[in-house]
């Protein structure tokens, strides 16, 4: 029914431009939820968020309220957060422990952690002769069609068909390899704190900004310059300013003309990588000590490989932005055509010295917390973008920057030399979008 109201979606996306309705039309948004978010692999959380059997976190996949729970079998399950009886949500809190089993607050139906029905009050007398009962799978909490984890990062897909997780991630799985390999134990642990920030704009506007290398020196110059002034002041006074000032001042010291020197790598399914620019490998005693610990764990050669992984951002389309060298990620949860929630987490490298954690923490607090001096200006732009797209002043959004000069090798688009500000990542994301949206007839 919905489909009939929306004109041929393939006409909305051209290789170098996109119709504005793609961002603003509520019907297209509903179709996106059906055809993209409720189909592809969506990040649910990290296994260490639910260490004990019964521990759960609720998570939104597309429009579906889900719950990620650790079972007694140690497996992580992802279930629809819904009682099969009258539809009541089973978990009303964002996270907690279900204890031995889930219990519905409405009529006391209980379920095992894998969703299987455990008991219904007075089941025998109440349901005798009906088609409802223990043997009917419809009496279970429905599980996600597929659940898989890569190096502790749990994803779910709500349909049975499609590529498996590793195939879906493709080369973007380097996000998780880079996070974990930087730990001498090859593992990370979540820091149990989630910052949640709502953007009043379409979810795609955030994703497109993540690898937009032209915007930082424009959008963030006020913060970059302010941080640089104070950084210089501290250097004068003490000889050395903490790395956290550099994390902020880099937004201004890397001036607009320098951003072309970086590169974006664009993969199938819309995933993209922006190469690193912050130079997060100083020669201070903390870093050198960390490098010694890593060399001991992996050997000199492998340590070099790990530390020279050149990444700033990995975007896993359509819902995850990972900053692997700083062990943090933002999960993108669309709440409506013009409203998007980001859930922001960071991780501790197991076995790494404390100062290395402090580095990730500084970035998490300064750049990714609700008091962020960086995203304050991003979110302002996103809102303005979304509002401007309501205008009849133009029908198209332009992705022409460096169009026609992308180098494609085996399905991977690499921006050419000195074309870091190419809009190739936006073109790549919209290409995947069009494929998902027109695949279903």
């Amino acid at each position, binding site marked *: 029914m919905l489909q009939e109201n929306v004109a041929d979606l393939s006409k909305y996306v051209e290789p170098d431009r996109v119709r504005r309705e793609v961002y603003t039309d509520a019907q297209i948004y509903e179709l996106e939820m059906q055809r993209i978010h409720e189909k592809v692999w969506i990040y649910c959380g990290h296994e260490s968020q639910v260490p004990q059997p019964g521990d759960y976190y609720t998570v939104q996949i597309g429009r579906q309220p889900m719950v990620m729970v650790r079972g007694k079998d140690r497996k992580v399950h992802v279930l629809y957060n819904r009682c099969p009886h009258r539809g009541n949500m089973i978990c009303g809190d964002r996270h907690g422990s279900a204890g031995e089993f889930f219990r519905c607050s409405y009529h006391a139906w209980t379920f095992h952690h894998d969703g299987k029905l455990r008991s219904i009050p007075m089941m025998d007398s109440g349901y005798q002769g009906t088609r409802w009962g223990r043997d009917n799978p419809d009496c279970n909490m429905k599980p996600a069609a597929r659940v898989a984890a890569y190096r502790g990062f749990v994803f779910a897909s709500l349909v049975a068909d499609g590529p498996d997780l590793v195939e879906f991630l493709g080369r973007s799985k380097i996000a998780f390899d880079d996070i974990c390999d930087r730990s001498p134990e090859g593992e990370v642990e979540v*820091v149990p*704190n989630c*910052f*949640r*920030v*709502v953007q*009043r704009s379409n979810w795609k506007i955030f994703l497109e900004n993540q690898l937009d290398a032209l915007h930082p020196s424009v*959008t963030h*110059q*006020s*913060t970059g*310059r*302010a*941080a640089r*002034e*104070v950084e210089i*002041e*501290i250097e004068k006074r003490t000889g050395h300013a903490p790395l956290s*000032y550099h994390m*902020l001042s880099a937004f201004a010291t890397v001036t607009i003309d320098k951003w072309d020197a970086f590169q974006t790598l664009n993969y199938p399914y819309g995933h993209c990588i922006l190469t690193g620019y912050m130079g997060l490998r100083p020669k201070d005693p903390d870093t050198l000590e960390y490098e010694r610990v890593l060399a001991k764990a992996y050997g000199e050669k492998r340590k070099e490989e790990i530390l020279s992984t050149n990444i700033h951002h990995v975007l896993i389309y359509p819902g995850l932005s990972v900053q692997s060298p700083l062990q943090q990620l933002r999960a993108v949860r669309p709440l409506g055509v013009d409203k998007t*929630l980001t859930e922001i987490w*960071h991780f501790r490298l197991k076995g790494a010295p*404390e100062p290395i*954690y*402090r580095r990730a*923490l500084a970035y*998490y*607090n*300064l750049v990714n*917390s*609700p*008091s*962020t*001096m960086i*995203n*304050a*200006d991003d*979110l*302002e*732009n996103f809102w303005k973008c979304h509002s401007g797209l309501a205008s009849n002043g133009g029908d198209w959004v332009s992705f022409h920057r460096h169009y026609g000069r992308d180098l494609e090798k085996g399905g991977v688009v690499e921006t050419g030399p000195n074309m870091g500000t190419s809009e190739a990542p936006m073109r790549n994301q919209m290409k995947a979008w069009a494929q998902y949206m027109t695949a279903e007839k």
Partner: protein
Amino acid sequence: MATKSKAKKKSPVKTVRRDRAPARVKSAVQRPNGRDTQHAVEQFLYRQAEILDGKRWQDYIDLFAEDGVYWMPPDPSHTTWDGMPAIFAEDRNLMTVRMKRVLHPDAWSQRPLWGTNHVVGNVVIEKESPNGDVVARSRFHMLELRRDDIRHFAGRYVHHLRKTRDGFRIKLQRVDMTNAQAAYDYVLQVWV
């Protein structure tokens, strides 16, 4: 009634004096240093609210001691800002970055109409040291207008104040917002 009619005959000044008299008796709720500290801390908190609402950012930073910290934990169970995730954990240097940012002509998100109104109350002196340093807790409510949107932030302040010749300076201002854990519709650009 009799007292009242009696009072009427006397001069108004005397009546006021007599009415005031019972307050001079020490009550159980009064702290050893009593009204002076209570009054001074309240005045300090009211002035702080005025400074924030007046967007006098340098004046606000100057309320802090050289080693002072502004801290907003994401969770009331946190006992230190050091090494912990925090919504704010800023010394004067970081506060200066924040100030310079919002004063920069190209801080785009500062362009729209924006203002706050702080109300501070329920001031309780938790501890007063012999040297005059004070720990005080209070409750605040901040209304923020940005463009056409109103947001409310409310919660508890704990001020660790150092007594100096120029009045109190903040060693630590802890801000536990009741809505710290709620999703933020947009961000917090300056201190609450």
